[in-house]
C-alpha cells in the first residue's frame, strides 16, 4: 500500500519577477514500511519534495496523496491536522522547543492529539526508552548534545504513531558517531514499528542505510531504484 503518491508535482517559487522551478513534474510512490533516501546535490529539490509530502507546502501543480488522502486541496488547518496525525518530522537543526524538557518535547504531539495524561506518559517513556534517553527526560535541549537532541526529535516524530516520518538531512549537524547512532535508531524503529521513513541527504554514510534511493537533479527524479539492501 502506498503511503505517499505524487503525480506530476511542480513547485515554482517567485521572488519578485524571478521564478525558480524547484520541482519540474515529479511522479513518485512510496510504500508503507519503506526506508527511502531522497538524494541529490543542493538545489536539486529534495527538501521541496519533503515539504510537499509533509504538507508544509503545496505544489504549484500536480497532486500529492498522503496516507490515501489528497493533501493538495487541504486548507491551512486541515494540513496542520494532517501533520499532527499522520506525519512526523526530523529536521537538520534538531528543532526541539528550547523551553520544554525532553519529556515535554516528545509529549507535545500527544498533547495536541488530546491523549490522556496516562497515555501520554506511557508513550513518552516508551519512546525515550526506544531512543535510550530515559535519564535525559527532564533535561532541556541546551543540556543535551546534538546527537541526543536529534534522538529526542526522532522520539517526538514517532510519538503520535504516524504513517510516515520525514527527515531532512537528519545527520548534517552531527559528528560521524552521533550520525551513525541516529541512523541506526531510525533503521531499528523502521524495522520494529513498520513506520515509513523518507529522508533527504547527500551524505554517502547516510545513503548506505537506505533500502531505496531516489535521486533528484534540477527538480526531476533522475534515478529511482533499490540500494542493494533487502527489506
Amino acid at each position, binding site marked *: 500500500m502506498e503511503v505517499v503518491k505524487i503525480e506530476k508535482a511542480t513547485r515554482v517559487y517567485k521572488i519578485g519577477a524571478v521564478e525558480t522551478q524547484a520541482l519540474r513534474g515529479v511522479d513518485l510512490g512510496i510504500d508503507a514500511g519503506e526506508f527511502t533516501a531522497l538524494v541529490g546535490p543542493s538545489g536539486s529539490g529534495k527538501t521541496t519534495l519533503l*515539504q510537499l509530502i*509533509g504538507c*508544509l*507546502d503545496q505544489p504549484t501543480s500536480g497532486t500529492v496523496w498522503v496516507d490515501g488522502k489528497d493533501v493538495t486541496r487541504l486548507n*491551512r*488547518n486541515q494540513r*496542520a*491536522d*494532517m*501533520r*499532527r*496525525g499522520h506525519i512526523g*518530522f526530523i*529536521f537538520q*537543526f534538531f*528543532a*526541539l*522547543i*528550547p*523551553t*520544554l524538557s525532553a519529556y*515535554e518535547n516528545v509529549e*507535545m*504531539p500527544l*498533547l*495536541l*492529539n488530546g491523549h490522556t495524561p496516562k497515555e501520554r506518559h506511557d508513550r513518552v517513556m516508551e519512546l525515550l526508552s526506544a531512543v535510550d534517553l530515559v535519564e535525559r527526560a527532564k533535561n532541556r535541549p541546551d543540556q543535551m548534545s546534538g546527537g541526543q537532541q536529534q534522538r529526542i526529535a526522532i522520539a*517526538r516524530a514517532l510519538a*503520535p504513531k504516524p504513517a510516515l516520518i520525514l527527515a531532512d538531512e537528519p545527520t548534517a549537524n552531527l559528528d560521524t558517531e552521533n550520525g551513525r547512532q541516529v541512523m541506526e535508531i531510525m533503521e531499528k524503529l523502521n524495522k520494529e514499528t513498520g513506520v515509513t521513513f523518507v529522508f533527504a541527504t547527500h551524505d554517502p554514510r547516510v545513503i548506505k542505510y537506505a533500502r531505496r534511493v531516489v535521486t533528484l537533479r534540477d527538480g526531476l527524479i533522475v534515478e529511482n531504484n533499490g540500494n542493494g539492501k533487502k527489506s
Partner: protein
Amino acid sequence: MIQLLKMAFRDLGRNRRRTFFSALAVGVSLAILILMASVIAGEIGGAFDAAIRLQSGHIQVRSASYDENKSSLKWEDLVQNPDQIAAQIAALPQVKAATPRLFASGFLSTGNESAGVRVTGIDPQSAASDPYRQGLVSGDYLTADDSTGLLLGQPLALKLHLNAGDNVSLSINTANGDVAEQTFVVRGIYTTNTYGFDSATIFLPLAKAQAITQTQNHASTVFVLLKDNSYTDSVASALKPGGLKVLTWKDLNPLTVQFESLANSYIGIFYLIVLAISASVVINTLIMSVYERTREVGILSAVGMRGGRIMMLFLAECALLAVGGVLIGVILGWGATLLFNIHGFYIAKMGITGILVGNSIFARLTLSNLISLSILTFIITVLSGLYPAIMASRLQPVEALRAEK
C-alpha cells in the same frame, strides 16, 4: 491549556529583563491611572463633602421664590416659622440635624481694611454647626443669645488684621432694602480648612442675624444634615412642606456635579492615552518575540499545532505579562496614593471659585476604581497582543522553518 500557559510562562522567562520592563511599563501605566482616579475621586468627593458639611447640607427647604444668588431677605422669599419646620424634619430617624439658617450679604470693615462677606445666621448649638465650633482656632464660640459677637474665618481675619476680641464694623442688607450697620466683637476665629469658604463667610447667632436684618422669625432655609448620604432622595421625597421647595445637595451644587461629569469624561481620554503608550510597549515586546522565535513557530506548526493555538500561545504570554503588570501596577498605585496622602496637594491659594474644595486635595482609592482599572489594563494589554499573535499564527511553516532562529 495548562500546558499552553506553562509554555507561555517559560517563554517569558527567556528574556527576563525585557519581560520585566514590559510588565513594568504596564504596571507604571496602571499605577498612574490608579493615582489619577484616586486624586479625581478625592477632589470631587472632597468638594461634595465640603459643600454638604459647610454650605448646602444634604437637603434644604426654602421658599419657592427664594433666589440664592440675590440672598433675598424679603419676607415672602423666606421660610416663616422655620424652627417649627426644622423640628418636624429633625424628628425623622434618618436626620442628623435640621436647623434654620439666614443668609445675607454684608460688608466688614476695620480702620483701613474692608471685605465683602456672606453673613450666615446659625443656631450655634445645632450639630450642623459642629464644623465651625470644632474649627475654632482662637477666641470663643458663639452662644445663641450673643448679640454683639461674630465668628470670622481665619483667612479673612488675616486679611483684615483682626484678632479675637477686636471690634469690627458690619454693614448688612435688611429685609426692607436698607443697610444696617453695627459694631461687633470678633468673638472667635475659625477654620474649616476650606479657603474659599473661610475667606468669605462670617457667622452670627440666628436671633441676632434676624434682628439686624429685620427678618424676625424667618430664615433663608432649613438646613438638613442626614446620617448618611444615601438617605437623601428618600428623605427629600418624604418632605412635603406646603408652599416650600425641597432641594437636595445635587440641586444645590450644580457646578460640582458638572465638574464631576466633566472630570469623568476627561479622565477617560487620559486613561486611553496612558494605556495606548503601555500597549505599544507590549506590542513591541511581542513582535520582537515573534521574530526571535519564528523557527519555533515553524516547528510547532510542523508538529501539527494549528494557527489558532499558536495565536493562543502568544496571547497567553500577553495575558501573563498583563497579570504581572497589573500586580506591579496595583502595588505601585496603592503606594503612590499613600505617598500622595502624606501631605496631599495644596490648592488653597489657587483661586478656585464656584465650588468648595478643601485647602489640600487627598486621593481616595476606591475598590471599584482599583478593580475596574485593573480589568481595563488587563484587557487592553491582552488586546495589544492580538496583532503579534495573529502575525505568529499566520507564518507559513516553510518560511518559518527557514528562519535563522
